[in-house]
């Protein structure tokens, strides 16, 4: 595994808070979160995790409240289900932003492998198909001006993310995906 870069310093342009989790821990927790969102989907009797997570996200968009404690509880559930030994006692808003971001990347990278197209890969995205923050920076949201459906944003009032697709490649030892793809004929 290539060594992952340290977090940006300062992490944000405002405030002094930095993530309490490492990039590796965020990737593992994001995978655990994505795993639960997928696996429990088919067992409707037990499928309360994904709807509840969605409910928190919806609540944020409606009220723009700080939902950090709710997210922490959900991510703790995912951590425990995955039997990960990661300390969340200092979990803060940036940790949530990065775990959410890691789950997003886990799922979108899987979609990319499934269809051999990154659904966010478009010249309308200003050549940023993974919606990464600027190198060495953190971000709260990268939006596509021409299509508001295509974005990655942190669904919480506070918190910035700095996890990138390149971190995933470094962590997994993969080449950046997807490969150049011609238009289907």
């Amino acid at each position, binding site marked *: 595994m290539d060594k992952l870069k340290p977090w940006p310093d300062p992490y944000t342009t405002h405030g002094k808070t930095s993530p309490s989790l490492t990039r590796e821990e965020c990737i593992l927790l994001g995978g655990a979160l994505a*795993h639960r969102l997928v696996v429990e989907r*088919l067992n409707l009797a037990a*499928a309360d995790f994904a*709807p509840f997570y969605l409910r928190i996200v919806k609540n944020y968009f409606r009220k723009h409240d700080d939902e950090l404690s709710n997210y922490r509880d959900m991510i703790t559930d995912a951590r425990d289900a995955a039997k990960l030994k990661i300390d969340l006692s200092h979990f803060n808003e940036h940790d949530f932003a990065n775990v959410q971001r890691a789950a997003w990347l886990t799922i979108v990278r*899987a979609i990319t492998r499934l269809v051999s197209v990154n659904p966010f890969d478009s010249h309308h995205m200003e050549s940023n198909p993974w919606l990464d923050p600027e190198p060495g920076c953190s971000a709260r949201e990268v939006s596509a001006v021409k299509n508001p459906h295509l974005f990655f944003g942190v669904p919480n009032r506070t918190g910035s993310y700095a996890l990138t697709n390149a971190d995933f490649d470094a962590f997994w030892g993969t080449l950046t995906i997807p490969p150049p793809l011609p238009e289907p004929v």
Partner: protein
Amino acid sequence: MREWPEPYIDPSASAPDDVAALYSPAAPGWRKTHAFGAGMILTLTLMELRSPLSWEPPPSLRDAYMALVYRARSNALIDFTDEYRTLVNEITARSSNERAASAAVSQLGAPSGVSHHDVLDYTKFNANDFANVHRVAWLLLGRALASLTNLNPHGDWGDPPPNGSAHPSDLEHQRVRHRGANFEQLNYHYVPNLTGHYAVSSADVATPNAGS
């Protein structure tokens, strides 16, 4: 979960010269639960999860699936069913995740002690089965993404007609009209194979009411 529509392919729904309709099998060889079990395993194979989740299929399988889809997208006049059969067979055979296997066995209705892979009869796997397995994976990932962000990047679920099946060519132009010129790269949901209709809909992976 409702079983497959019958007839699986409505001849009147496709133009007479629709090559996909002409060459698709009349019906899937697998039951719907089998498509869901294999689709779940495919989904988790494509995701990157590391021990102690203990889901570590060889990276080559993830890459092989993307590469095969890449070839199919680039050669839309070739039928890749045999290659998909071999690859999906290998993916399900080598899956080792206990929780995923448990979920798959639950879907498959396998008796206790029977491997999920043993339930899947690949001698019956045809183009429609590939279409459905692929479609299940697409829906599971799309649903997960929607739960995560409250947004479906595709805009809809690309469902076939109620109690019907669909070939991607039936829906492709609809997607383009829906999203306009900006959507050309997102017009990505179709079965990456010359033949095969899918009949799995978003209702099959319905989310329980999440409340207000």
